[in-house]
């Protein structure tokens, strides 16, 4: 706005001003060497900055980029000297640098063309001070985004990219840098997962337990949360605040503390569950930690204990916002309680919280803490290299840190990523932020 007014004052009518023969295409062409186009536009300061920046970029990073590209394609040629992992990371950083460089280059081309067009149309050349001011105005948001962007690139995107790369090399205990070189092996790791009998059977059993665990534990915790929220919302119930606080307690206590307490309570030998409840009542003791079936029962029960308060708290808020008129109208129509629940309560609650409910499933799908802290994924099962309660993410952990089978672990991580992406897709369609952008994905 501001800029237009300033420039407008200098604008001349007609085509007879100084720069009426100025050629934007020529400016674009000249900018192939960054800065030249700008100089042609009489923006010498800007041109110098672009040129110096490009020169500095090339001088500083040319070797690094050359080395990075060589490294990521070959993964090294001399064992001992070339560290394949370092080369992969340098390669990824190179890609990031190149993307950044290309972006600046693109901006340079665009800028030269736009400025030339303006000049041709009769806008004057802004003074240095104006130019600085405009640049500051335009680039300010980038300064704001800068720190976040850099952090996201190096703490999130780079690790994810590195993980993707690892899934396509042969990195395991007996083939690890720096003493060995890695190689790109295409989809071999995925093929091994699908066809080698040992991997195949382990993968299928871990995967199916992960699905059962996710569905059963999450659905139960949602159901319990909903049930309790409806009960507390009943008009006849008194002391609602106290009751709510009490019911939220498991969420307030740090998860790792609760899980470790439960791990002690469920202990086969000295645990309180066996000694104080099961043995006196039924005169047997249940092998919570050593029998796969019982361990699974225990883990699901604990997760329901840990997870229902969040759902409960959410639903309580939603239930209070449902108008009484709905229920009164339903009563007049002679609806019974179940019909009211099915037709009013449930749709309302689910509509308001669907993305968060999907998140609950995603969360449990990757719920490493409970699996690992309770029993480290155990008990062991004969003939497979994952424990009886290992879900995909905890299996990845043990493949990485105790078996050092990095590539297979990365391949499984990728599969987890794909599944999460499916969840994410459904969540996307319900996320408010995106609707605000005027599009619904």
């Amino acid at each position: 706005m501001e800029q237009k007014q300033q420039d407008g004052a200098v604008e001349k009518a007609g085509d007879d001003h100084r720069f009426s023969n100025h050629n934007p295409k020529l400016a674009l062409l000249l900018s192939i060497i960054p800065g030249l186009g700008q100089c042609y536009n009489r923006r010498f300061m800007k041109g110098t900055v672009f040129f110096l920046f490009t020169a500095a970029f090339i001088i500083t990073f040319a070797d690094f980029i050359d080395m990075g590209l060589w490294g990521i394609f070959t993964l090294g040629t001399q064992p001992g000297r070339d560290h394949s992992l370092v080369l992969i990371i340098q390669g990824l950083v190179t890609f990031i640098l190149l993307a950044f460089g290309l972006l600046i280059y693109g901006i340079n081309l665009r800028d030269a063309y736009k400025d030339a067009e303006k000049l041709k149309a009769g806008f004057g050349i802004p003074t240095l001070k104006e130019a600085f001011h405009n640049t500051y105005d335009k680039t300010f948001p980038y300064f704001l985004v800068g720190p976040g962007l850099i952090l996201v690139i190096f703490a999130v995107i780079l690790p994810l990219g590195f993980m993707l790369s690892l899934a396509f090399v042969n990195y395991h205990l007996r083939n690890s840098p720096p003493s060995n070189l890695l190689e790109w092996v295409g989809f071999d790791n995925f093929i091994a997962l699908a066809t080698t009998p040992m991997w195949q059977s382990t993968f299928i059993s871990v995967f199916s337990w992960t699905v059962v665990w996710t569905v059963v534990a999450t659905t139960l915790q949602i159901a319990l949360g909903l049930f309790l929220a409806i009960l507390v919302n009943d008009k006849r119930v008194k002391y609602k605040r106290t009751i709510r606080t009490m019911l939220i307690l498991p969420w307030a206590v740090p998860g790792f503390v609760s899980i470790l307490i439960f791990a002690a309570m469920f202990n086969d030998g000295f645990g309180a569950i066996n000694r104080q409840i099961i043995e006196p009542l039924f005169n047997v003791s249940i092998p919570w930690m050593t029998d796969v079936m019982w361990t699974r029962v225990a883990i699901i029960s604990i997760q329901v204990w840990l997870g229902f308060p969040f759902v409960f708290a959410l639903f309580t808020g939603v239930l209070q916002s449902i108008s009484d008129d709905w229920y009164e109208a339903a009563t007049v129509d002679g609806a019974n309680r179940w019909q009211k629940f099915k037709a009013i309560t449930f749709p309302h609650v689910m509509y308001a919280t669907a993305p968060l409910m999907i998140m609950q499933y995603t969360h449990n799908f990757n719920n490493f803490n409970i699996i690992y802290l309770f029993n480290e994924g155990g008990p062991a099962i004969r003939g497979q290299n994952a424990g009886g309660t290992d879900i995909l993410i905890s299996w990845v952990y043990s493949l990485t840190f105790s078996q050092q089978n990095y590539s297979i672990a990365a391949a499984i991580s990728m599969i987890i990523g794909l599944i999460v992406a499916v969840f994410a897709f459904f969540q996307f369609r319900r996320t408010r932020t995106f609707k605000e952008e005027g599009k619904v994905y």
Partner: protein
Amino acid sequence: MLKAKTKSRLEVIAIYAVFAVMFVIIAYPLLWAVGMSLNPGRSLFSASMIPENWSLEHYKWLFFDDPRGRYVTWYKNSLIVASFTSLFSVLVATLTAYAFSRYHFVGRKNGIFILLVLQMFPILMAMVALYLLLSLVNLLNTLTGLIIIYVGASVPMMTFLVKGYFDTIPKELDEAAKIDGAGHMRIFVQIMLPLAKPILAVVALFQFMTPFMDFLLPRIVLRSEEKFTLALGLFNFVSNEFDNNFTRFAAGAILVAIPIALVFLFLQRYLISGLTAGGTKG
């Protein structure tokens, strides 16, 4: 009529019965842990939920008698990590969110899209890579490495949280300030920040609590005992010799759980609103 009244009364009794059962299920493990921590001996086998001659010896041991003073060190580490994570997360998320909420710049839409995609993927999916990456840049086994990942991983989600809040602040406010001649920085610091205090508090609190509760990331990053955070330290306390250390673990765990639970219960209203507002992870 009388029949309906009796029926209603029975229902209320049933509802309270459900709550009673839930209370027992919720309180039992927690009270059991408290009981354990008050037992004088170290063996879990001889310990009882209501000890006959209770003592605070385990609490005392944690602070004064442990020759290596591990618990105090872990508490200190957790506080350091939590403070820095909280501070930097607020700073970075606020700046980014402000740009996305108020400026229309090239790449804005793509930026929002990328953040939205990234916040869906738990960073721990990349744990293999994180571990190797940190070891290559010599940040393995440092609190700095841990803080960087916490802050970086939180950026997408927290940005959305703050952006959502900024979006609710009327644009007329900063436009008026602009007309009055306030610069970019001034509008941000003097107008937006004071108005956004509640959401900044939520972000700060979330990020402060995460390092106290998280287990997996410290497990991957931290290797030596004097660098541990509380979650990791307490786990190692019991993982090797469950039977022998549980009473001490219980004492240590309770001293972590009580402050966190209190803060949580007092601020739950804000936490829930924060969680629902941004549609973030549960």
